[in-house]
């Protein structure tokens, strides 16, 4: 019986010792406070210096102590400059800031949209003039290349130049003007006195009302068991492991590359859901493409939107989509929603 008391007493004693002396042994990591040395001058001294400045009327000289920022070779911003405060500082038009950080000119690094005949989710640089234009980039293969398998010689091909958005004539901007700083460097501020340390005031903490005893773990388990015992209301989908996010994304990107949206047409106001059945070789079953549902637009616009979606699925899936055969049950039937809302605003 007493063993328990001894263990409890020893534990409490150790806890009290850790609270009282633990700080001496285990020191918690504290963020370092930047300290800047300043000299304090009286009001009279400042008035005398100001008066002398007014009489001499000398133009402000650059402070030699402040080293200019070193040329930036990378995109990382320059390190903050720690100013050395001197007595002669009042003559300087730009006193150092509180933190010592020098504000740099703001340069808008947003890519400047350029006009291009093609608009795509990913921008494509202007290809070389001698390179053929193709739907997907192709590396050139010459007949002299030695390979284990015979490779048909082909011309190098690149994707057509593409911009990520429509750039009207009114929106075209001067490249140099766009690279100019959005605003100029601002003078830095004088360091201020450190704020007086305020002693923390301990407030009485209201006594917490005791909560009724609950066991969340037990509740979760009970809930899971109950749900497992409930009969399934809807039939389960295909068995087997589901497609990974990357596999789904691959299919989405593949179809989107062939989805040509006419943003000026009334069909651009229509969202269609297209259903299809797939063969095991990941090609679309002939005549399985069907309009499942649509939203917005007239009947004619819906039909145009459906035809554009249908064309995209067939064209980019002509050789079969890149889908894992072992998960065929998961992608045997597919429904794709074509929503052009974001395209309309381009």
């Amino acid at each position: 019986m007493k063993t328990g008391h001894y263990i409890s007493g020893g534990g409490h004693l150790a806890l009290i010792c850790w609270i009282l002396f633990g700080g001496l042994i285990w020191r918690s990591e504290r963020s370092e406070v930047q300290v800047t040395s300043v000299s304090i001058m009286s009001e009279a001294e400042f008035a005398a210096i100001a008066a002398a400045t007014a009489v001499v009327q000398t133009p402000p000289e650059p402070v030699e102590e402040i080293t200019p920022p070193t040329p930036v070779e990378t995109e990382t911003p320059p390190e903050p400059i720690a100013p050395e405060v001197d007595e002669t500082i009042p003559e300087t038009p730009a006193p150092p800031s509180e933190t010592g950080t020098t504000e740099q000119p703001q340069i808008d690094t947003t890519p400047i949209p350029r006009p291009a005949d093609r608009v795509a989710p990913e921008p494509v640089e202007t290809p070389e003039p001698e390179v053929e234009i193709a739907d997907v980039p192709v590396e050139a293969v010459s007949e002299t290349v030695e390979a284990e398998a015979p490779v048909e010689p082909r011309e190098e091909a690149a994707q057509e130049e593409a911009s990520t958005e429509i750039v009207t004539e009114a929106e075209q901007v001067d490249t140099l003007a766009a690279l100019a700083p959005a605003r100029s460097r601002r003078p830095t501020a004088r360091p201020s006195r450190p704020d007086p340390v305020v002693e923390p005031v301990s407030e009485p903490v209201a006594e917490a009302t005791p909560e009724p005893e609950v066991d969340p773990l037990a509740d979760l388990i009970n809930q899971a068991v109950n749900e497992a015992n409930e009969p399934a209301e809807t039939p389960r989908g295909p068995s087997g492991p589901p497609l990974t996010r990357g596999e789904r994304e691959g299919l989405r990107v593949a179809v989107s590359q062939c989805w040509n949206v006419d943003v000026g047409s009334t069909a651009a106001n229509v969202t269609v859901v297209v259903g299809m059945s797939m063969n095991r070789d990941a090609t679309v079953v002939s005549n399985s493409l069907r309009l499942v549902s649509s939203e917005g637009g007239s009947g004619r616009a819906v039909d145009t939107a459906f035809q554009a979606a249908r064309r995209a699925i067939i064209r980019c899936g002509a050789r079969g989509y890149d889908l894992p055969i072992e998960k065929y049950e998961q992608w045997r039937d597919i429904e794709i929603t074509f929503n052009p809302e974001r395209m309309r605003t381009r």
Partner: protein
Amino acid sequence: MTFLRSLILTLGVVVSASVFSFAAIAQNGPLRIEITEGVIEPLPFALPTFMPEAAGSEEIALGISQVVAADLQATGLFRQIDPSAFISQTSDFNSPVQYADWRAINAQALITGAVNVTSDGQVTVKFRLYDVFSGNELGEGLRLGGTTTSWRRLAHRVADTVYSRITGEDPYFDSRVVFVSETGPKNDRRKRLAIMDYDGANVQFLTDSNALVLNPRFSPTGDRILYTSYESGFPQVYLLDVGSVQRRVLAEQQGTMSFAPRFGPDGQTVVYSLSSGGNSDIYTLDLRTNQTRRLTSAPSIETAPSFSPDGSQIVFESDRSGSPQIYVMPATGGEPRRISFGEGRYGTPVWSPRGDLIAFTKQNEGRFHIGVMRTDGSEERLLTASFLDEGPSWSPNGRVIMFMRETAGAGGAPALYSVDISGRNLRRVNTPNAASDPAWSPLLP
């Protein structure tokens, strides 16, 4: 015991969480994905030269093929595939299509046709449109007939059908444009009304150059034109019959000037500006009864009125707020509602045939723009920018805007340009002389 119980409970939670996760990932029904990003690019099409079916048909067959291809490409929505890349060679209009050959060159649409010209000058053109990747014919084949003098119209009709079947939009190629043709130096311009096909072909003059003419506008049926002429020494509205080229003055009132006319959708109502005593207001004129009606009564300048397609509202330009802005009012008059609130000066508003947009001219920071906005003034988009752009006119389907652009300097001259409402496909319209004030006709009957 307590430790053991906690361990069991923790393991239970982990296991059940895994079950839940798997259930959440497992799909019910088909695999569903959503696509919100596509591409905007011209659709590649193949158009083998239409086959001549009789001797002497070759030239017109070639001409029709070229006009059809040019019409489609001029939209910016289609790209013609170089015929040298063709694998299949069509030798018979009715021979089956080798879809694989056209897929191999990435043709998404295939247009085949044949032309027959008879000795009495009759032209027959028949064509088919195929959706290559679907392996189906898109719509049924069509046969059109005309004369050798109207073969370009036949070509435009073929292109209209192709355009409409693929885009789902109403067509606009078989239409005309009336404009002011200008010759002579900048300080002594000679201006004549002229009419041409929408693509700049077949220019014909409707007036001589004795009087200054401005602002021609087609009637909804395309058979009459309203315009402003200084024939009497001051501006007056005239009505011209396109077929007979006969004209008569409208809204003639002593001591007044009338200008900026435009037809209402019924073709019998004309809305225009009338200036009296230095003040301009908007009036309507009933062509059947010759009765006029004053719609605005303000000390400011009200001008450039344009009906909505349903005839219920009128959009116009007014400087009642201190600078030219765009206002909308009921077609019978009433309190106008300002809809333009951006920076700069707005003018020459024109309601789209679709009814969803208003095109306008905007002057801001020394530049002129052609732009569009919703009919409530929202979603303003500027489509062009130059030294001087003005006078927008809608294509019959509300998809393209034609306007005048003048270059700067003493040698500067006006020319006609067109731009898609998306802001893409800005291109110059070829005219034999300098040209301004374009007005697009409806589709020809």
